[in-house]
């Protein structure tokens, strides 16, 4: 049962965390989403961080650290409250962990105005990437739009010319379709915005079939994506109309849950489990030893965030000198599990994006295999608007 | 003498059931007009149309010559029609005094004031005390309404109706459920009230009806079969057959 795993995991986390809770440990505040449907995202981000810390025996960059973790419940107000608690009560100068853009919107401006540093392991909303950028705000993951721009590039590269795009009717969904169309050079023959809480896509399947596109792009994060892919298969569309997906629709949890309904799909990513570099091999091995569940890219981002912080701590020895810490972070002097990594002008990543194939893994399930590089040293569309 | 209340061909049906069938009724100013009839004859439906809770399908209602058919129930109270309920309907959580005070306040006006203190409106409390005294409920003023006896509740309802200074009082079975002594008290009380207002009385207690009524209308199957003095009604053969039937002749 999962309960046993949970207890083991909790014990492991407790063991990992306890020796570092020393007097001189630097506190890092993690605000993340652990409850509700998106709980696994925050959990993986946190565990990626814990893993990096454990691999250095409770330290990052030679500095003992203590990770404070709290659940924001996906409520912007709660995120803000936790940030205040960290900064005001615990004297935390370095915060991270937020999964969702709306929590970031309510929380990040307050953090950076307080003179603390925020390193995002996931959300990279556009309103903080352009004019709203800040020298104390770093994003390790990606700018939100880049995820979908990669998918658009993939559709172009694969030679498709008629695309059908679907996304939930909310900001991230609109950004997704905008992002896709920004890099897709063919024609978008249909666009559907689904309801935010919609889990049944039968109506959309029928419309896709009627529109006869040669490729489908859809953005349905988490559980929605699982439902979508399965229904795509059940509708008999899988194998008939190819699909190009951006990263959130094909994380490892989604793949495990959809199984063979994901076969043949073209996925895009900035990280995959099979990346052939030293840092990644180390990360994957450590994860598989510690946790009994699939590695998602969220975990890789949590891990990378911790490694980035470690690289900065190695230079500054901690958070006492914020200016020095900021400078050190900006250098991004660490080996990312995704290979090349640098910060752009707005302190968002400049990185490579890849095309993945979903194939059988030989154990009755499926896995993602890296096929080709799509975009090289790719930044984002908002960097130019950032004056820093 | 002109009628205070007139209904003209009031018609109301529920589904297949005709509850009031072209009822034309005139209540003279100053009289006690009793409305009798067997259960299900449509008495309460008629009362509810006069007070405005129900709207007739056809017909008109006039108060003092003025057509009030289209007026709301609340508006009719201000025009002078007050009522009591067959099953007492009070503010059960509030004290007796507060029940009366609210009725007084509703009549005095200023109900939409959001920046005054009701407790400081002396006029309300003076009138409330006067009413409580007149109804003999002043010693129960602080009691919670839900703790009152049935008879006391009936008295309280009457007081609250009186608070509106009605020209016409609709009494829906004021004696229902009362013991013999209580009924007699109620008859005495109504004898007092009739000096101040016209009364349309629905009642099964024939002793009370014949003691109080100046005129009586008999309603059967939604139709008025006769209106007349108590003696006329008592002697009317149709009434005996249709209403009194097998029962003993009244009084």
């Amino acid at each position, binding site marked *: 049962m999962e309960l046993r795993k949970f207890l083991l995991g909790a014990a492991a986390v407790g063991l990992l965390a306890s020796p570092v809770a020393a007097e001189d440990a630097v506190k890092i505040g993690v605000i993340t989403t652990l409850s*509700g449907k998106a709980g696994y995202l925050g959990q993986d981000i946190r565990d990626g961080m814990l893993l990096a810390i454990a691999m250095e025996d409770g330290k990052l960059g030679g500095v003992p650290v203590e990770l404070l973790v709290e659940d924001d419940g996906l409520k912007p107000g709660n995120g803000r409250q936790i940030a205040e608690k960290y900064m005001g009560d615990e004297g935390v100068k370095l915060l991270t962990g937020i999964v969702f853009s709306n929590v970031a919107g309510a929380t990040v401006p307050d953090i950076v105005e307080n003179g603390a540093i925020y390193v995002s392991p996931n959300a990279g909303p556009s309103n903080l990437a352009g004019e709203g950028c800040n020298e104390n705000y770093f994003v390790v993951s990606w700018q939100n739009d880049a995820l979908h721009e990669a998918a658009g590039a993939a559709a172009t590269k694969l030679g498709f010319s008629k695309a059908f795009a679907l996304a939930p009717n909310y900001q991230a969904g609109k950004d997704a379709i905008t992002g896709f169309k920004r890099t897709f050079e063919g024609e978008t023959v249909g666009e559907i915005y689904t309801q935010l809480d919609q889990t049944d896509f039968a109506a*959309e399947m029928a419309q896709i079939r009627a529109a006869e596109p040669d490729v489908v792009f859809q953005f349905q994060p988490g559980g929605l994506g699982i439902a979508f892919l399965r229904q795509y298969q059940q509708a008999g569309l899988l194998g008939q109309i190819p699909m190009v997906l951006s990263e959130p629709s094909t994380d490892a949890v989604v793949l495990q849950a959809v199984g063979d309904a994901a076969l043949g799909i073209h996925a895009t990513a900035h990280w995959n489990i099979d990346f052939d570099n030293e840092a990644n091999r180390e990360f994957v091995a450590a994860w598989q030893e510690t946790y009994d569940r699939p590695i998602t890219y969220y975990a890789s981002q949590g891990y990378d965030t911790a490694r980035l912080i470690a690289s900065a701590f190695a230079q500054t020895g901690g958070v006492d000198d914020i200016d020095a810490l900021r400078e050190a972070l900006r250098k991004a002097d660490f080996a990312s599990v995704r290979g090349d990594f640098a910060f752009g002008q707005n302190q968002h990543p400049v990185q490579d994006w890849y095309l993945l194939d979903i194939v059988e893994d030989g154990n009755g399930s499926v896995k993602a295999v890296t096929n080709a590089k799509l975009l090289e040293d790719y930044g984002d569309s908002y960097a130019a608007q950032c004056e820093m | 003498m002109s009628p205070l209340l007139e209904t003209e061909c009031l018609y109301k049906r529920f589904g297949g059931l005709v509850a009031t069938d072209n009822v034309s009724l005139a209540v003279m100013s100053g009289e006690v007009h009793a409305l009798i009839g067997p259960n299900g004859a449509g008495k309460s439906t008629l009362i509810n149309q006069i007070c405005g809770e129900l709207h007739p399908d056809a017909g008109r209602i006039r108060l003092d010559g003025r057509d009030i058919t289209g007026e709301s129930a609340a508006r009719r109270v201000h025009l002078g029609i007050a009522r009591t309920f067959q099953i007492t309907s009070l503010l059960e959580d509030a004290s007796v005094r507060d029940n009366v005070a609210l009725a007084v306040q509703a009549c005095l006006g200023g109900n939409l004031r959001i920046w005054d203190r009701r407790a400081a409106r002396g006029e309300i409390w003076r009138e409330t005390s006067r009413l409580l005294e007149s109804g003999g409920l002043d010693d129960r003023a602080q009691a919670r309404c839900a703790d009152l006896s049935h008879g006391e509740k009936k008295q309280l309802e009457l007081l609250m109706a009186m608070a509106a200074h009605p020209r016409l009082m609709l009494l829906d079975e004021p004696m229902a459920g009362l013991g013999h002594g209580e009924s007699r008290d109620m008859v005495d009380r109504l004898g007092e009230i009739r000096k101040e207002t016209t009364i349309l009385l629905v009642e099964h207690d024939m002793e009370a009806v014949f003691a109080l009524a100046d005129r009586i209308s008999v309603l059967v199957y939604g139709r008025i079969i006769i209106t007349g003095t108590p003696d006329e009604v008592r002697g009317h053969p149709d009434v005996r057959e249709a209403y009194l039937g097998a029962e003993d002749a009244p009084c």
Partner: protein
Amino acid sequence: MILVLEQILNGLQYGVMLFLLAAGLTLIFGIMGVINLAHGSLYMIGAFAGTWVAAHTGSFWLGLPVALTAAAVAGLLIEMLVVRRLYERDHLDQVLATFALILLFNELIVLLFGRQPIFTPLPELFSGSVQLFEGFPYPPYRLLIIATGLLVALGLWLLINRTRIGMLVRAGSTNRDMVRALGVDIRMLYTIVFGLGALLAGLAGYMAGPILAVQVGMGEQILLATFVVVVIGGVGSIRGAFVAGLALGVVDTAMRAFLPGFFRTFMEPAAADNLGAGIASMGIYLLMAIVLLIRPKGLFAPGA
């Protein structure tokens, strides 16, 4: 034409799911006067218990009885430990208590099954798609759901119109005090109805498993739509739940499918998509508001 037909089938399938949930909720609502926000949790419990067993045994059919049992047992426990103490209280206490239950169940599921969504394979027989007629493929599993929903509807109709319990249920939903006055052991009736409602919710949850994601919080998602069905149909009316469930399923599906296209005929595509999707997501609420404004008690309210 095929598109319209397909969308109607899709709407029916969504509609019977809503009906399965709403049937129990409307009875609990109508007979006991209890607002049970935790009804969605029973749906989730059925889905998790059944799917877990199905995933470990590899058999869809083995999961079914487990899902039904788990949901019914959870329902009975809720009734006996919590709801029973609240019958005499007002709606607000019931809201607070059942809201607390949602929190409890969600977190318990996280503890037991983890945060990742879990997965059931479709039964072999029903995977893929069948050609209903030339050029019209349709997933047979969805047909199975529709058939199940209709069968349950028939079963409930027989139960309510042909049995003693059904008679009590009917009497109870129109006049609670009367049933009590008859000297019927009302507690027993309440427990049975609650258990039955939970069972149907569990069935709906398990049936939804292979097409949706079985995950924490799946109950709240469908809870609101279920309440909408109950209210439109008329509180306490199974017939209302059936008609409103199917109507809402079809209307909701049709709006999602055809509104943007409709707006595109006279608007810019981007604006049309936006407006269409916006109205479609408000659709069921709009529909409920309109129905209530015309018939304040819903379509088939008992005793109205």
